[in-house]
């Protein structure tokens, strides 16, 4: 079972067991990690499941598709390493992935 690390804006770290095929958003929410509002439930329509990929992982995470990238332009504080976590699907290749959460989703 892949393990993800999510770091809240205040520095609190959460290690989360994720199922393959699940989205990172769902894995985090199911582990009760606060900070991903995910208003649209994973439909890539709200941009409130925003997180930053740790630099060491950037090259290993599949690139965002166009819809996600366009939505991200309006995520709070978008950066080069921004992603919408509902569009990141957990696989063995993401075992160990580290993400940082923004201060706010709005």
């Amino acid at each position, binding site marked *: 079972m892949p393990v993800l690390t999510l770091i809240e804006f205040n520095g609190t770290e959460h290690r989360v067991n994720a199922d393959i*095929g*699940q*989205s990172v958003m*769902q894995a985090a*929410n*199911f582990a*009760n990690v*606060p900070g991903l509002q995910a*208003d*649209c*439930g*994973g*439909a*890539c*329509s709200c*941009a409130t499941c925003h997180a930053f990929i740790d630099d060491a992982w950037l090259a290993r995470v599949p690139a965002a598709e166009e*819809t996600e990238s*366009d*939505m991200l*332009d*309006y995520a709070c504080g978008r950066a080069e390493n921004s992603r919408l976590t509902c569009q990141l699907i957990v696989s063995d290749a993401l075992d160990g992935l580290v993400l940082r959460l923004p201060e706010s989703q709005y």
Partner: protein
Amino acid sequence: MSLASIVIVGAGQAGYQVAASLRQEGHTGRIVLIGDEPGLPYQRPPLSKAYLLGKIADTALLFRPADFFATQNIELIHDQATAIDRINRRVLLASGEALSYDHLVLATGAHNRPLAVPGAQLEGVFGIKTKLHADTLAPLVHAARDVVVVGAGFIGLEFAAVAAALGANVHVLELGDRPMARAVSREMSEVFRKAHEGWGVHFDFRQGLASIESDNGKVCAVITSDGRRLPADLVVFGIGVIANVQIASEAGLHIENGIKVDAHLLTSDPQISALGDVACFPCLHNDQQPIRLESVQNAVDQARCIAARLMGKPAAYEALPWFWTDQGALKLQIAGLSTGYDSSVIVGSPETSQLSVLCFRNDQLIAVESCNRPGDHMAARKILARAPQLTAAQAAAPGFELKAWEVANRP
């Protein structure tokens, strides 16, 4: 006001969100969430889309796992609320139990308007509202050859796209003259009509359903209003919903196209709030006219507004309505309400199904419908929520782009 106990009736999108937001806001009193559907609270949008296609697991429908409700101390009760005793501030349940409340939140949603034609009760005739509906329907749509969809609204068309993708012959009957007529512009309807036809969906506009025929108790055909017989092994209808107002109405609350609430989402009883699909509220983005909206955004934002008020931070509900629907390869996102628009400007290209329709009323931008242009949608949400407003003349200028205008006109 002491709020030792908050009782929420209806454990759908709105009810769940009220409970979760109350805890997030730091409420420490009792929270009871009463739902009459089995299982944990879940989201409905995938029921007519990815879930029906088999693309996502049922756990992906859940908002949160069981231990969330335990750790957050949200008492989830599977029962039906049958009456509200406003004098003694109690909710009565079908099991006979009575729950006392300091504040009551009604989030009872809506049920599908039933088909009123002979044969509507037959096996193989479905509306899509609950997970149970989707679970029963999924194997049938995977096996179906001839599917008739009654009503070309959002849910009917989402289902039509799924059925067509799974290889069925899909026939849509619609009383109006275009798809999604009540919710989107003529221009956008046209894009979706063409797209569905490209996927093999056949439309019959200005056409009703007269009856459903059966063979051995199972649906085998439908008869249209003009007397034609269409083969059908599955009939799915989406002809609107009826707000679940019964307990509110019997308790004497003001009812008017749903449970009538004020700008703070309070009912005619100040100890009772209502929200989501069941609530009719004065809408800032609808010229302050009362409206009942059926959307995830509406349920979620109203829930946050109520939770904040109950935690001592009252504010009028003013959130901008937004909505999405996914049909085949098309994602339609709507910001604002286009009711009564009198002019429009198209940005992008209808030919490639990548476009936004900007809807104006009295030269005021009131809504933006974006198909496969998510950046436009997000820009529109910003623009519609603040001044200054874009004019039709500005939008019609050559080379106009919503995103660029939004960035250039940030306050």
